[in-house]
């Protein structure tokens, strides 16, 4: 049961490519692995905190006021994430500050709160949060790795901003001059994300057959689906 919750959140219902949630940070912060990992950890922390506390409080939160309550809980955890990053990874924080602050409006987190955490016991809510956060991290890191490699010719550049002096010599220089500098600019983010999503779609289509894929798409295809359902 728990394993199902995890892999459903991470792979089948992946927030990025299956549900198109959290696209803004996905495209904005994926220009290097260090940035991508920083945002993935911060979002994961907020998601875990929000899912856990909403699940614990689900019997107390009145149904009519549930969305404002969820948003306030998420905003509180976002503020905590901002403070922690400001204190321990300030240089990294200044590079991705805005996108850490707007984690609060990431529809992925509100979507999980509304669709899952507010109806399930705390154990399942935690597993669901971990699965969804892992799925988001996979998408962020995949896009981050490709964009850094093509746009900068390196992998794991500037990791010391996130892990301290430990990461100073992690950088791998694959190409001495960047093969496609456009990749780190905004157009590169859109183009490579489009190609990544197409690749995922092609892979899942061959695995489960074209008809099954179409049904999944109908269920999860539209962005903001969870939020839309939450606002009657």
């Amino acid at each position: 049961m728990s394993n199902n919750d995890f892999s459903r959140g991470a792979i089948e219902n992946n927030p990025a490519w299956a549900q198109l949630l959290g696209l803004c940070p996905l495209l904005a912060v994926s220009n290097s692995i260090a940035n991508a990992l920083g945002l993935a950890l911060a979002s994961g922390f907020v998601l875990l905190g929000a899912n856990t506390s909403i699940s614990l409080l689900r019997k107390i939160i009145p149904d009519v006021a549930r969305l404002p309550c969820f948003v306030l809980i998420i905003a509180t955890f976002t503020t905590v994430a901002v403070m922690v990053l400001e204190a321990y990874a300030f240089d990294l924080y200044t590079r991705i500050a805005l996108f850490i602050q707007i984690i609060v409006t990431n529809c992925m987190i509100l979507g999980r709160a509304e669709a899952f955490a507010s109806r399930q016991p705390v154990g399942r809510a935690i597993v669901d949060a971990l699965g969804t956060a892992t799925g988001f991290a996979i998408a962020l890191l995949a896009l981050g790795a490709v964009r850094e490699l093509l746009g900068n010719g390196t992998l794991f550049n500037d990791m010391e901003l996130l892990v301290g002096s430990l990461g100073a010599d992690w950088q791998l220089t694959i190409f001495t001059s960047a093969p496609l500098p456009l990749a780190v600019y905004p157009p590169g983010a859109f183009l490579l994300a489009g190609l990544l999503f197409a690749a995922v779609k092609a892979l899942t289509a061959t695995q489960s057959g074209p008809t099954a894929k179409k049904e999944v798409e109908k269920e999860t295809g539209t962005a903001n689906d969870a939020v839309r359902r939450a606002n009657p």
Partner: protein
Amino acid sequence: MTELGLILIGALLVNNFVLAQFLGLCPFMGITKSYDTAFATGLATTFVLALAAVISHLIYHGILVPLDLTYLNIILFIVVIAGLVQLIQVYLHATSPVLHQLLGIYLPLITSNCAVLGVTLLAINQNLTLLQTLTFAIGAAAGFTLVMVLFGALREQLQQASLPEAFAGTPIALISAGLMSLAFMGFQGIGS
């Protein structure tokens, strides 16, 4: 005056919120399936964005800074935006049924539109004055609407196009957005 003009053009074209700063992508990808809905969403967002930025600016500099509570900004701004959206909904429902019907279903979604919170936070981070904040918000919202409408029209065409199955839907939309973003990079030279 020139300074305000530069802020307006900067937010509208050079640093377009959707194509250069990646804010408001959820409605951009989710709602722009047709021209009409794109336009209605753009209008509703413009309205909320301008009001939210100004009210947040007043609260931040009038209450949070004097009381040394600036770390509460995220929580407070999201409450302002959500409250504003709710108020506008109630107001429109009571006074203008036509407008309410036109914008009604798009209004609740604005709360979770990161462009609104993003503009509000950017205006605070850059220490803009009240007038500059208003100009910045209007420029950003106009840029958002412009791109939404252009992309809405484009996507009506895309739905007719015959594509490899893997590219149908979102992937081709993202790639088209990438090409638009490339075009918008051409504005980079303005004002520098």
